């Protein structure tokens, strides 16, 4: 390649000088899903280095949290990982509940579980669909999205919003499962499986798909732990770690499910882990719904909490397994009605910082495949 072609794009920060071409990918690029940006050095099509640059969606959520009361901050958590807002809501609610030292009634816990698993399915569907789109297979994306609309329908029945759900409240959930859930769920279970099957048929054993994904960006488990990977990314590397099993919260210790894990940590394993996790989520919802039906109809949904929450001084950290991995909230309270400091530990933040390590030496096409398999959501990445 010729000497560095002068950059037409915007570049910031230190740049390596060499006989390489600087290729700026993002922030507006079809594969960057909004606001991600990677500044790559390429030798032909091979990537010498890929420096992610983030902050294009930094909205000051943590600063905002210090200026809002505990209940007011709940809707802001929706806008973190907008693909599965419910997981964020529940994670935040549980962190505040831990700070307050209250336990939620079992019915509310089950409803939270059911909704969270639905959100997990929705999140994985988007991730798998987008991975397909980025590798050139557009059709599975449409199959998964049309299925996802049905999940949205249930969310709408339950708490009235499609995407930014703000489900529940601190101390429980505000509404029971929708009346027609018992009719809707079996039909939806079938449609989830059908969408997954269709995707599976189109992709999994497709030779081109396997060529593009198997062995691409393979990553070993020790490195992954050192980089702070969690969730499907870590499990694809062969480490069976899932907070639902390792540090059970809600009633996850009472349901029976497996942790799908890969071996090589490549794109294919990440894809398979997500596909299999959807199956497991369906299983969890089935069991949780059976447990829910055993509870009396008028079982309480909310723990009594004061209107204005003033948790005692102290600092806690509480994490749950969000679709992307460990989603934690660190809250320090000074005894007033607003959190003194609130810090969100987004799962894809840790994954994305290892991006340079992941893609070094691969080709530009692999960079795209890798990025979409990480499922980096800019909202929670930049906060």
């Amino acid at each position, binding site marked *: 390649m010729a000497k560095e072609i002068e950059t037409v794009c915007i570049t910031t920060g230190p740049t390596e000088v060499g006989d390489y071409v600087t290729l700026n990918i993002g922030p507006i690029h079809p594969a960057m899903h909004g606001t991600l940006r990677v500044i790559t050095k390429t030798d032909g099509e091979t990537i010498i280095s890929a420096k992610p640059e983030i902050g294009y969606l930094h909205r000051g959520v943590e600063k905002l949290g210090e200026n809002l009361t505990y209940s007011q901050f709940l809707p802001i958590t929706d806008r973190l990982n907008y693909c599965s807002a419910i997981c964020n809501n529940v994670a935040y609610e549980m962190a505040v509940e*831990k700070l307050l030292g209250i336990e939620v009634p079992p019915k509310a816990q089950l409803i939270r579980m059911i909704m969270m698993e639905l959100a997990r399915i929705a999140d994985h569907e988007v991730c798998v669909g987008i991975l397909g789109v980025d590798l050139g297979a557009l059709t599975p994306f449409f199959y998964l999205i049309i299925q996802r609309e049905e999940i949205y329908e249930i969310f709408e029945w339950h708490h009235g919003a499609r995407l930014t759900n703000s489900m529940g409240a601190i101390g429980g959930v505000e509404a029971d499962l929708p009346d027609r859930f018992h009719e809707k769920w079996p039909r939806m279970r079938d449609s989830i499986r059908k969408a997954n099957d269709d995707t599976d048929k189109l992709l999994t054993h497709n030779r081109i798909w396997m060529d593009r994904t198997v062995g691409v960006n393979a990553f070993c488990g020790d490195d992954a732990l050192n*980089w*702070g990977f969690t969730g499907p990314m870590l499990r694809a590397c062969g480490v069976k770690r899932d907070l639902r099993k390792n540090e059970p919260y809600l009633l996850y210790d009472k349901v029976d499910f497996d942790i799908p894990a890969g071996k090589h940590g490549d794109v294919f394993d990440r894809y398979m882990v997500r596909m299999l996790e959807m199956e497991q989520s369906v299983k969890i919802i089935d069991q949780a719904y059976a447990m829910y039906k055993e509870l009396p109809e008028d079982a309480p949904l909310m723990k009594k909490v004061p209107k204005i929450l*003033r948790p*005692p001084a102290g*600092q*806690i*950290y509480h994490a749950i397994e969000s679709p992307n991995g460990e989603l934690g909230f660190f809250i320090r309270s000074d*005894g007033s009605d607003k959190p003194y400091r609130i810090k969100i530990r987004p799962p894809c933040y*840790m994954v994305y910082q290892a991006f340079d390590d992941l893609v070094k030496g691969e080709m530009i096409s692999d960079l795209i495949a890798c990025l979409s398999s990480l499922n980096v959501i800019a909202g929670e990445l930049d906060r």
Partner: protein
Amino acid sequence: MSLKERVANILKNDLLEITESKGDVCVEISRQTLVNALKRLKEEGGFDFLSDLLGIDNSDLYAKPKKKKKKTEDGTEQEQEEKGPPPPRFEVVYLLLSLSTNERLQVRVRVPEDDLELPSVTSLWRSANWPERETFDMFGIRFNGHPNMRRLLMWDEFQDYPLRKDYPLEGKGEERHLNYNIA
């Protein structure tokens, strides 16, 4: 042996203070012994996973009027702080996790305002890379030995440190301008 005792055994003299709130154990260690202590926690204590790292600006906490003290039930922390001189303004909290026992530990270090420097722990956990940059971005605490100590979330020309308590929520009216040199 409980977590507290185990941690106390490992840290020995480096341990300045150990507190517990709602089951989360938090130990305080000094700046000088930070990397060494964390290394021992990682190797001997089995806390081999760094979940996150964050900075806190304590200026408001200590400057708070005392009237709220009566309302809180266990205001032990505040009473303690009244006794001694006011502690340094900033602190950095490391959230550790033991993968084998699934225990979590918070380690905090105080950083005074006039000397905003800490040793970097990127040599122990590479996952500290971005969180340290973010802490620099938001609080201005520099980490010595970090491979790339630049702003992470705000743009490079940004002057202030937004998460400090004296920075207003709506900012000071900064705008980002880019000059394209199209010659």
